[in-house]
């Protein structure tokens, strides 16, 4: 236990006693509040105004403080000016009051130094603080910590640690009392890397003074640095509950949840808030609005040329775009005030990682560690990026270093926990792939995953004339939190089900999905090709567009059929310009938006392939391997500007919408589904029609049809209501019209599905199956329909069709017994003993109710396949549990005889 920790334990009692005393005094004083109000000092009133966010009034009031309150009043006024971004007056009020020597006015001088640091004048600030510290015996705690912090910032780490330790020692000696000073000791501990102590001290500071906004916010900053978003958000919110105009907390909230309104509010209060401007710029950049972002960053540097974060963002942009001179310029600017700054390099590593350039991220992370071997975040950055390159061992080793020294970092600990999961996983290999998956998936999924992977390799590498670097590592996670952590370091990843990093793919196990997992695998492998073709420099829209487009090329029933959404988007003019398609992903507000971003990206790729030819698509991909403007790329490939390309695309879309020729009523909402657009998309209007069928709905739909006879949804909903009323003939008419109008519609429920149900109710098996077949021509996510069709085909001894629909069912859910029982029956029927063995092996793994029967079936399959030894061992397992089981006994005798004959 550190000495500080010991002291903290002792201090808990003191704090408790103190709190009781304060509470008693407060209660006593409470009754006199009103009497005192009129006589409150200017300092007290200023503090109240500051706490309430009335910064202008506070700055005035503080300056009215006199006598013993004068110094505190001037510092308060300076802080109030700072809250409004008025650096000039913030500096003036304290500077004018400082006597000849800084050491004679330590608190005013410290405030002045803080203002100067905020203006990027670190050297001037250092001189002031140094003068205070060297000029007096016991400099104030705040002075020590601000001095230490600044020394660390400018790279004088040893001196910084010496000063910061003085502040901590002051606390250990029992000489720090006020909440404000405890906050400073907490900050000192943080800067010294003692995160546990810092956490305890921030806790103490906020308990001693719940209105200490600086403590709440710095504590939240600590959490945020450690990727603990929920605690960070709570801390910022605590501060905002006290003062809703407290700019550092407004910025903090925006950094946690990406809330643009918080930033706008912050900038309305303090238009010169460097943190708010910086964060706004980052938000804009994430949304692809780089030009606007640049304006914010320039504003930041004008205010504070030493803003490390902004300089590192700009340097990263330069490095990403291979503008070496520009990068060197930023590096030199940082070196001028903070030589060899590890954090700067770490930020750049992070930017490269976020842009999928993992090799470069690793280089910068290594450089950051070299600059400061105690920069623990550097190890986390290095480890996480190595993992994305498939370098698991070295990645884990670096994460462990990070964790050992900074166990509070949630990202580090999460990623290490995933390694614990991976240790329980099996590793399987095919010619071009290495796959980590659970034992269950290894048993059940792998027999179907392996051939699919190799098929995707063979098909897509031949088509694109490009062989990616292999083996490609695939990690299939049973737990969605593990998947999320492995992918982005944090446990919440939204609706994503698979992510490709170029050489590594992470997937959620199909066991936790209701979607066509084969389509997802195919989609992700296509990313491997496009990412590696461009050195991971593909824009997201094009990479996703191609992957979705290749789904349809992989199987005719894969891909997205969102004709109705397209009509709606065109009618509402929601199609994004090609140049800003990326913002459709980064700015998506819900699953429907995200799903449409995929769909529109696919449409652009389809447009290119149809109108310009597939080779032009390949040419465009390679354009992204080079760093240049989009205008140049489009000009080289299509001989036109991006705007001209966009205009052509829009004309093509108009034609497509005209061909679809349906009307999308504004009262219907777009279909929505889980799983990143993979999976069944629900038509909520039609579902409601199914649940609440009534006369008024029927009448309303009829009137909609009268208004517009191409209203697809009206026909569908009317058909559903009539079906529920068992008016089958009339329902069929409307549903058939809806189907003819939009035959590829695959939302749930679709006209084809409802029609199949009507025929089922009528006992017309042939028509039921016919409509199910129609449904399955476009819908890839329907397990139940595939099973019905497979059973029918098997009963009719149409083995080719049976195999086809069994495969369709396995594409959705390979974990259910009925599909494997069907496939085993099929295998026996077509005398495919090897396939029968595979299926009975899977059934053995899936069986929970009758393992003896499953074991016996497997043994019989082995026997038929000539695997006598396996057959005998399995039958012994079965008979061990059920010795009197006659069928197993007979199989045992047969296997023993055949073994003897061998």
């Amino acid at each position: 236990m550190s000495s500080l920790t010991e002291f903290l334990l002792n201090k808990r009692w003191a704090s408790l006693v103190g709190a009781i005393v304060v509470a008693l005094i407060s209660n006593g004083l409470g009754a006199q509040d009103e009497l005192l109000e009129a006589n409150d000092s200017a300092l007290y009133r200023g503090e109240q105004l500051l706490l309430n966010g009335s910064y202008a009034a506070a700055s005035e009031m503080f300056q009215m403080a006199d006598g013993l309150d004068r110094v505190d009043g001037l510092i308060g006024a300076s802080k109030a000016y700072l809250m409004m971004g008025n650096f000039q007056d913030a500096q003036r009020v304290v500077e004018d009051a400082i006597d000849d020597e800084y050491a004679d006015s330590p608190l005013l001088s410290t405030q002045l130094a803080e203002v100067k640091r905020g203006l990027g004048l670190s050297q001037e600030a250092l001189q002031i603080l140094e003068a205070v510290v060297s000029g007096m015996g016991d400099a104030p705690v705040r002075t020590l910590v601000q001095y230490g912090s600044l020394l660390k910032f400018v790279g004088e780490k040893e001196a910084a640690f010496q000063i910061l330790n003085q502040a901590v020692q002051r606390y250990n000696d029992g000489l720090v009392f006020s909440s404000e000073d405890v906050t400073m000791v907490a900050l000192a501990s943080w800067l010294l890397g003692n995160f546990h102590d810092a956490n305890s001290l921030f806790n103490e500071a906020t308990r001693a003074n719940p209105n200490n906004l600086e403590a709440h916010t710095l504590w939240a900053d600590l959490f945020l640095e450690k990727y603990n978003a929920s605690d960070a958000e709570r801390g910022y919110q605590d501060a905002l509950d006290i003062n809703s105009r407290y700019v550092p907390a407004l910025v903090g909230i925006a950094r946690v949840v990406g809330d643009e309104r918080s930033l706008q509010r912050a900038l309305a209060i303090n238009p010169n808030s460097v943190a708010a401007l910086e964060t706004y710029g980052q938000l804009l950049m994430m949304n692809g609005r780089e030009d606007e972002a640049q304006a914010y960053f320039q504003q930041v540097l004008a205010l504070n040329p030493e803003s490390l974060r902004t300089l590192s963002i700009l340097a990263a942009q330069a490095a990403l775009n291979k503008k070496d001179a520009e990068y060197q310029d930023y590096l030199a600017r940082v070196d001028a005030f903070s030589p060899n700054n590890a954090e700067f390099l770490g930020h750049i590593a992070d930017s490269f990682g976020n842009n999928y350039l993992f090799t470069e991220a690793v280089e910068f992370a290594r450089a950051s560690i070299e600059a400061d071997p105690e920069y623990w975040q550097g190890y986390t950055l290095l480890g996480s990026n190595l993992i994305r390159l498939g370098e698991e061992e070295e990645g884990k080793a670096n994460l462990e270093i990070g964790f050992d020294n900074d166990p509070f970092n949630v990202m580090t600990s999460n990623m290490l926990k995933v390694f614990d999961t991976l240790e329980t996983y099996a590793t399987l290999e095919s010619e071009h792939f290495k796959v980590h998956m659970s034992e269950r998936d290894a048993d059940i999924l792998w027999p179907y995953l392996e051939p699919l992977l190799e098929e995707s390799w063979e098909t897509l590498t031949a088509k694109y004339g490009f062989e990616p670097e292999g083996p490609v590592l695939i990690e299939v996670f049973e737990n969605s939190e593990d998947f999320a952590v492995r992918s982005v370091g944090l446990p919440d990843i939204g609706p994503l089900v698979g992510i490709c990093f170029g050489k590594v793919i992470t997937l959620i196990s199909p066991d936790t999905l209701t979607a066509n997992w084969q389509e997802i695998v195919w989609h992700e492998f296509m990313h491997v090709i496009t990412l590696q073709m461009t050195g991971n420099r593909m824009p997201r829209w094009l990479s996703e567009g191609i992957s979705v487009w290749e789904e349809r090329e992989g199987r005719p029933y894969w891909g997205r059929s969102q004709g109705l959404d397209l009509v709606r988007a065109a009618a509402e003019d929601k199609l994004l310009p090609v140049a800003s398609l990326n913002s459709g992903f980064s700015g998506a507000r819900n699953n429907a938006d995200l799903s449409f971003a995929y769909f529109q990206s696919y449409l652009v790729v389809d447009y290119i392939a149809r109108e310009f030819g597939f080779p032009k698509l390949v040419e465009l991909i390679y354009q992204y391997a080079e760093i240049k403007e989009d205008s140049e790329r489009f000009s080289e490939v299509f001989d036109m500007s991006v705007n001209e390309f966009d205009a052509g695309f829009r004309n093509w879309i108009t034609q497509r919408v005209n061909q679809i020729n349906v009307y999308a009523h504004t009262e219907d909402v777009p279909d929505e589904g889980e799983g990143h657009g993979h999976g069944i998309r629900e038509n909520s209007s039609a579902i409601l029609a199914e649940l609440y069928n009534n006369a008024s709905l029927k009448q309303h739909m009829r009137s909609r049809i009268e208004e517009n006879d191409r209203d697809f949804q009206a026909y569908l909903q009317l058909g559903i209501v009539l079906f529920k009323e068992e008016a089958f003939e009339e329902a069929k008419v409307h549903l058939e019209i809806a189907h003819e109008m939009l035959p590829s519609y695959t939302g749930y429920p679709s006209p084809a599905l409802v029609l199949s149900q009507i025929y089922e109710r009528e006992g017309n098996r042939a028509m039921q199956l016919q409509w199910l077949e129609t449904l399955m021509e476009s819908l890839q996510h329907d397990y139940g329909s595939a099973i019905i069709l497979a059973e029918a085909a098997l009963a009719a001894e149409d083995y080719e069709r049976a195999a086809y629909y069994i495969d369709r069912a396995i594409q959705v859910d390979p974990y259910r017994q009925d599909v494997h029982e069907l496939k085993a029956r099929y295998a026996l029927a077509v005398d495919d003993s090897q396939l029968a063995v595979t299926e009975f092996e899977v059934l053995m793994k899936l069986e929970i109710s009758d393992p003896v029967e499953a074991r016996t079936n497997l043994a019989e399959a082995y026997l038929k396949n000539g695997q006598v030894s396996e057959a005998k061992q399995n039958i012994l397992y079965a008979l061990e549990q059920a010795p009197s089981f006659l069928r197993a006994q007979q199989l045992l005798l047969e296997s023993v005889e055949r073994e003897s004959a061998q």
Partner: protein
Amino acid sequence: MFRLLTRKLYVFCTGLVLAAGSQFLQAQGQTQDNELNYFLDSPDTSKYAVIMVGPAVGEVNAGRFRQWGLSLHDILTRDYGYSSDTITLLYNDGDDSFVGGERVDGATDREGIVQALSELRGRVETGDQITLYLIGHGSGAEEEAKFNIVGPDLTGIEFAEMLDQFDRQDMVIVNTTSASFGFSAALSSEGRVVISSTRSPSERYDPIFSGYFIEALDQRNGDRDKNNRVSMLEAFEYARANVEQWYSEQGRLAPEHAGLDDNGDSLFTLAPGVDQADGLLAEIAYIDTLVDDTAGLSPQALELKARMQELERSVFILRGRKAEYLEADYWQQMEQLLVELARTTGQFNEQLN
């Protein structure tokens, strides 16, 4: 530790008494562990079932509980040799005005239960087996845990007192109600098999366990060892595994975990078995009565049958001592026994033909 030593000792004893060739050892050779002679599986004993279906909240539950009660009645009659004389069905308030209502024998109220048990007491002989199935809602916790019946609800302690009169019969209680744990725990007693659909007082939702337990009995689905009979352990295992899978498929955390107690310590085991704290009695507590199928057999067939039984016992004994063998030796010996058993069974069947 004590339990383990005891068990090993019994295995040894079983080896000594093998020569006696008791036909009652058919149920997996564990009877030697059954010092007090519970659940002695004899063709001479009778088996009775009392199905109590409590009142339900809501139409859906009412329909489900009724269906479970009737299905159970029909399955016991159809597949296990029970008759309306050996099954007592108490249903809600005794109303029988529904399709299948003719099976109802009385109301699930205090009076109906007391009367049914009293009548049963007059009919049962020493060594008979009584299985009580409780279907419906439960409430409360610990000693206050109750089976919701018509009128004042019944606590586990009260019900246990009602069952005290059956001290010379084997008893199985299958409590499938919600919040069943406290009630079930009060019924625990030496020589009694108690199955509870929940394992803790915090599990208060209506369990789905009952449906799967009945499914296990239906057409002997739960018959894991293929001896054409279903033991309570097998039915429990079947239901437990399917409940687990159901919640897993739904992507939900299971709010119910069934447990079984058959050593009288009121501690319910979630995965009982012959090598666990609970499971030994449940394994030999069969739903049906052993049928004496030796009548009319030739002396040679009788001899073959005795040999089959002896070999089966040897298999069970060897299996029980698996940990003491090297893997290869174990399977070599097992194979020898099983091959001989298969051949003997073949010869026996030829004799029958």
